């Protein structure tokens, strides 16, 4: 079982995520792989993603917490910083990672990214372009996608 050599930090973090989940976020580790999490983030209010339920996967690599966790959207989303494979452009997941950050902070940051898309630092170029040229129309598309791909049923 993987838990045998699982660092204390991961165990504690998992426990805390269960006991005291952040609002709008849930993370559940797999029984057969305690480094692998199924994540659900609900779209923040007053955003085009409001009402959406977004599935993500999160994996803690061997070097964690010295290396950042790997996170990816599984639900299709129209967002300038998330590409069609679900990869996320977020500084703390890359060079700004600090070992003092946690799964919870990472997921909160992703939730915040949904509220404030940053088309100036894009991952999906076409979406970012759309966002900059016609923000209202882009937000409309994002809302459509949310209804189409991220609705609860």
């Amino acid at each position: 079982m993987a838990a045998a050599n699982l660092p204390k930090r991961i165990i504690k973090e998992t426990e805390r995520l269960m006991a005291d989940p952040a609002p709008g976020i849930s993370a559940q580790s797999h029984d057969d792989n305690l480094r692998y999490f199924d994540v659900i983030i609900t779209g923040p209010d007053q955003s085009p993603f409001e009402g959406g339920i977004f599935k993500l996967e999160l994996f803690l690599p061997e070097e964690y917490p010295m290396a950042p966790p790997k996170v990816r959207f599984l639900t299709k989303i129209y967002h300038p910083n998330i590409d069609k494979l679900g990869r996320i452009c977020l500084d703390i997941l890359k060079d700004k990672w600090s070992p003092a950050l946690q799964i919870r902070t990472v997921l909160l940051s992703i939730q915040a990214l949904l509220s404030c898309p940053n088309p100036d630092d894009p991952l999906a170029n076409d979406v970012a372009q759309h966002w900059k040229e016609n923000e209202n129309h882009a937000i409309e598309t994002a809302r459509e996608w949310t209804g189409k791909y991220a609705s609860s049923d």
Partner: protein
Amino acid sequence: MSLMLMPVFTEPKLCFAETVETVSSGSSTDAETLSDTELSDFEDYDSLDECTDFDEDDYSKEGPSMALASEKTCTEDYRSVDFSVLQPEEILEAQTISQKHTAEILGISSGEAGVLLKHFKWNVERLVDEFMVNPQQILCKAGLAVDDENTASPVASSSSSSSSSSSSSSIASSSSAQSISSTSTALREQCVEGFVCSICFDDEASERAFGLSCGHLYCKDCYEYYLTEKIVDSGKTSGIRCPGPQCPLTIDDDSLKSIVPRAVWDKYQRLCMSAFVNDQRHLSWCPAPNCENAISCLQERNATFVDPIPTVTCQCSQEFCFRCGELEGHEPAPCTLVKKWNTKRVKDSDTSIWLASNTKECAECKSTIEKDGGCNHMTCKQCEYEFCWVCMGPWDEHGSNWYSCNRYDEEESKEARNEHAKSRATLERYIHYLNRFNNHEQSAKLEVGLYKKIDKKMEHMQLMSKLTWIEVQFLKDAVNTLLEGRKTLVWTYAFAFYLVRNNTSEIFEDNQSDLEVAVEALSGLLEQPITSEWSEIACLRQSVQDKARYVESRRQVVLEDTAMGLMEGRWKFREDVGQDPSEISEPEAEEATSSESSAEASSSTEAPVDAPADAPADAPVDAAVDAPADVPVDAPVDAPADAPVDAPADAPAEEPEAVVAEAVVVETTVETAVEVPVEAPLETEAEEEEQEALTVAAMFEETVVEPVY
């Protein structure tokens, strides 16, 4: 530089051997003459005493400070390059000195100066300038202090996520007060009650917490793990920051040392040293594998043709060009030319040789065409020009002669062939130089194997004769000289390739051919088997020594003259090689062949021109015209070049063979050489060289009794 080292190492030994010989063998050689030679030898190299001192210092490894202080200075006019070799300890020392020096100027601690210098890539000037303008901003940028606005944010974010929030926020408030003074890089140990490290969440461990003045506290294990990851995995040497999220503070070297294991610290120091050398333009690693030394040289990296070529020699005896990194150096060719030549060589060599032998060019569009079968009626795929492969003339004039060509001498065909010949000549010219370049390079590689053979020969010689180990070292010295000569020859061909053909280039080629002949002669001598006859060994020794000195002197002439020419802008290059683009001239078809003949012309109709360093190009050939008796002899090897010696009047007249040999060594005239039978076949050349060496040596011993000091 390395070129300078040669005489320093070899000459004193040679002299020593000579003196010993007069005593032990009791030969009839005049002792006074020998001591004179010895004296003049030493006087010659008086100016190099510093070099000798330096090398001794370094080899004995007396200590970093000693060697640091002693800079290598060679005062040769056109090729002087100052450099010094830094051993790892010396690099560390230099780093510390630079750090202390900066700390004094800026009035900060040495550790902080280290962080700042790394941040500024060891550019002290820029650091000092910018620090004087806005010290606080610089400290913040380097992570030595926190901006007032930034102080709150990292702590706030960490308090939301870390369990040690209470303690960190209290420390943070105190740190913001002292943020102007930059004492924040030292890691301090604190005892915090109920401390839980926010990296490992381990609450059972001690209450010992470590943190910078930002107040982000972590346990020692996590700090160690974090720093080790930064150093070993990421290879970071600067900007290792507090692990706190978005915390800008940098951890200084002393704190680092106190936390990480010894092996990691060593690795860190190596990385820092590497960055120290790589970041500074006047430092460069020795390219030899397993050599840890660096070379310090103040040569301009983006040098023009006028600057000397900075060939430097590491203590591991690796020679390289400080500017372009070419191994073994590349004098006399300048760096830009070497780069051009190397690219051309890699790109063109085999391909162009194949093209030259297997293809022709379309007379219309110059496309390269390979004939892979079929008849001689060719149709160019590119321009659809129809021509005859045999005569290269247009096909329509062939009429109905479809499968044969009897129009070889027709005007159009001739023209087409001339055109073809011209474009081929350019290629052939290149191949000519390339072949010689490769040939000498190959020879040099083969002759490295000569060392082993020579070692055996030296043993053999000691057994066969009364010579001691020291006395047979002359053979090894001669191999050194030979290899140096080859190395120079290699690059003279690259240099010559780019030269426009004119008087100066002819002088260059004459110098080059003199060196070539001398090198080949020495090579031949060294390959000779050793007999057991004592007298023959003595002879061999004499001629090897003479020849080796001659090679060295010819080599110096080539290098001096080329370097001086570069400085004066005397050379004209055919392509833009970084100098005077206006001087480009079109290559001509005849040049390939004519240069070939002159390069190979050694002792024949062309008088070898001696261009001594002090009076070059202006008056190269001023030898007497009428009688060989008056030929001014440039004392070839031992005596300095400005002490002309009169040759004995009768010797050349009575012994024409000796004159042939002398034509190689001694300045002579066209007439002299023509009067004499010059068709000496190549095989006997080595013997002649030997004879000539003996003659010259004999002459020298007789005439040098009144040396000019």
